[in-house]
């Protein structure tokens, strides 16, 4: 206890160097912990892009591809699935609900997703977060469109705005627009920090309506198309979907249904469990994690080296201090203990400060990160891995502290009571 007080006063005597040393340790700890928190936050956000959906069903292709176009609204489906097959699966008694998707059009680079009211009712992300209409209502009429929050914000669209959808998903000039079938903005979704924010939502009928009279992928000649006003819901027959999300009444059913859909008679379908496909995809894109971790470990090492340098260089000017302590009955071992105490104080205070500042930063930056990078870092207690990191850093710091301590021990042995200045 007394030694601890002595160590504390000694450090306070070298306030500036002590501060710098502690700051550098705190900074490196904060970096390591921050990287870890961001990594886990990004992974969790990614894995929670879609929840409460047991199966994603599309035409047979790769699971990652299906995941990309059905959940992330990226890339294209190679094939559609027939509405008939959809209705057949939907009517299975084990199915709780389905969310149909019809994709393929876009608006100024943002994807257009045709779906039905189940989407608004059942789509979940980040565990139990459902979609909410922030303004207006859900799309129910043929030419209604609901905007994802980012679309609304970036394109500065308000309620009632008339917009023209483009055929295809490329943003390049020369694409075909559905000029004669303008859509009216009837609602804007809340922010979800998922790909939901980056799309526009229309009804399945709306998707059919803008492609009405098309033949072989080509638009009708001018004058031959049905006027927009003349299109009513009962005139529209939905023929195809791109994919659909499915929720079973019991999770056990999901596994059976996945197999059944994969061997569906009538057309080649593919069902994937979103969690499985998401973590597969994440693994594929998580190379950067290891690199980032390595860099932050190096920073921790340099922080500890900084402490070693600070303590080691102070030793010579402290020989007098050591001789005084010796004269008062301190053994060389006490001097060693004092030095280890100092490095331990550095390490522990630095680690605590680093940890505290990470939490403070997360608290401050949480909304900013969510807005800018689309993922959410929750404020949670330290995980086992993080705690292990902190423990390792502290241990390393204390071990490194033995180097100057040992040097001080040698000094006191050779100096005895001789005061060197």
């Amino acid at each position, binding site marked *: 206890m007394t030694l601890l007080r002595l160590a504390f006063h000694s450090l306070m005597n070298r306030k500036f160097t002590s501060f710098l040393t502690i700051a550098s340790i705190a900074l490196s700890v904060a970096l390591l912990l921050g990287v870890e928190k961001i990594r886990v936050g990004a992974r969790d956000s990614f894995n929670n892009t879609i929840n409460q959906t047991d199966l994603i069903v599309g035409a047979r292709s790769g699971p990652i591809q299906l995941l990309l176009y059905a959940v992330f609204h990226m890339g294209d489906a190679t094939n559609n699935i027939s509405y008939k097959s959809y209705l057949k699966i939907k009517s299975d008694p084990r199915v709780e609900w389905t969310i149909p998707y019809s994709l393929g059009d876009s608006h100024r680079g943002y994807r257009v997703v045709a779906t039905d009211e189940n989407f608004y009712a059942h789509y979940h992300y980040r565990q139990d977060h459902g979609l909410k209409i922030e303004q207006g209502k859900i799309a129910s009429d043929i030419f209604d469109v609901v905007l994802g929050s980012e679309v609304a914000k970036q394109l500065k669209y308000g309620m009632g705005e008339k917009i023209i959808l483009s055929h295809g998903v490329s943003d390049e000039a020369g694409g075909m627009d559905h000029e004669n079938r303008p859509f009216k903005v009837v609602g804007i979704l809340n922010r979800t920090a998922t790909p939901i924010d980056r799309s526009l939502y229309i009804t399945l009928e709306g998707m059919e309506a803008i492609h009405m009279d098309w033949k072989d992928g080509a638009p009708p000649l001018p004058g031959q198309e049905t006027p927009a006003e003349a299109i009513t819901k009962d005139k529209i027959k939905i023929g195809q979907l791109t994919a659909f999300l499915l929720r079973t009444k019991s999770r056990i059913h999901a596994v059976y249904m996945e197999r059944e859909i994969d061997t569906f008679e009538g057309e080649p379908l593919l069902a994937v469990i979103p969690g499985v496909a998401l973590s597969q995809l994440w693994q594929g894109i998580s190379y950067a994690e290891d690199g980032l971790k390595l860099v932050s470990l190096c920073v921790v090492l340099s922080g500890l080296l900084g402490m070693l340098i600070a303590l080691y260089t102070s030793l010579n000017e402290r020989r007098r201090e050591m001789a005084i302590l*010796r*004269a008062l009955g301190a*053994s*060389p071992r006490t001097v060693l203990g004092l030095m280890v105490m100092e490095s331990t104080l550095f390490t522990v205070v630095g680690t605590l400060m680093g940890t505290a500042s990470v939490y403070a930063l997360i608290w401050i930056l949480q909304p900013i990160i969510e807005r800018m990078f689309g993922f959410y870092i929750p404020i949670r207690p330290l995980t086992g891995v993080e705690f292990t990191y902190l423990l390792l850093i502290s241990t390393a710091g204390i071990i490194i502290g033995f180097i100057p301590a040992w040097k001080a021990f040698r000094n006191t042995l050779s100096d*005895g009571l*001789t005061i060197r200045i």
Partner: protein
Amino acid sequence: MSPISATPIVSIRNLTFAYGREAPVLSIESLTVQAGEKVFIHGPSGSGKTTLLGLLAGVLAPQIGVIQILGQEFSKLSASRRDRFRGAHLGYIFQMFNLIPYLNVRDNILLSHDLNARRDRKLSHQARAARVSELAQELGIDTLLDRTVTKLSVGQQQRVAAARALLGSPEIIIADEPTSALDYDYREKFIHLLFTECNKAGTTVLFVSHDRQLEPLFDRCISLTEINQAATRAK
């Protein structure tokens, strides 16, 4: 002269000390100091002063011979036990820079207590605080107790060092030229202050200096050049 008591407080017999494999720097056939004596040890540089102090304080151990302190065969104790012995029974005053710069005057005085469990047990916490105030008053540093030591004059610093050495009433005080950094007029005053305190507790003083003008103040004077057979007789 002080009365001669039966057992000397310090007794050195047939002592030889060498650093490593070098030639011996100190070789003393016999040296005894009685309890309560104020002994002046003088010798020029190279006479083995530093070595003798190291041996008496127990940071060094002789290769040959015996050092007895307080009836204990000091030189046969382990290094760590000598450290503890020093902390408990010896007060040490350096020539200068006696104080830890980052502690205030009070904490510097209390440092010997803080570092020594054995000295600590002699006094309760309150009694110790009272003793610090008392000593500080007697040495004229009571107004400085909460000051930073780096702001003190050399004379004040040495008095703080004396207070620290005296606290806990050690049996022996070893002073290594404690007055050499002081003004001439002040030296005598410092020694008088030190002696006054030592007399109260019957403390023995071993005072090492090359300044022979102080000699008359002491009970006895030992010339290290004369008793050290290994001394390099520079002059």
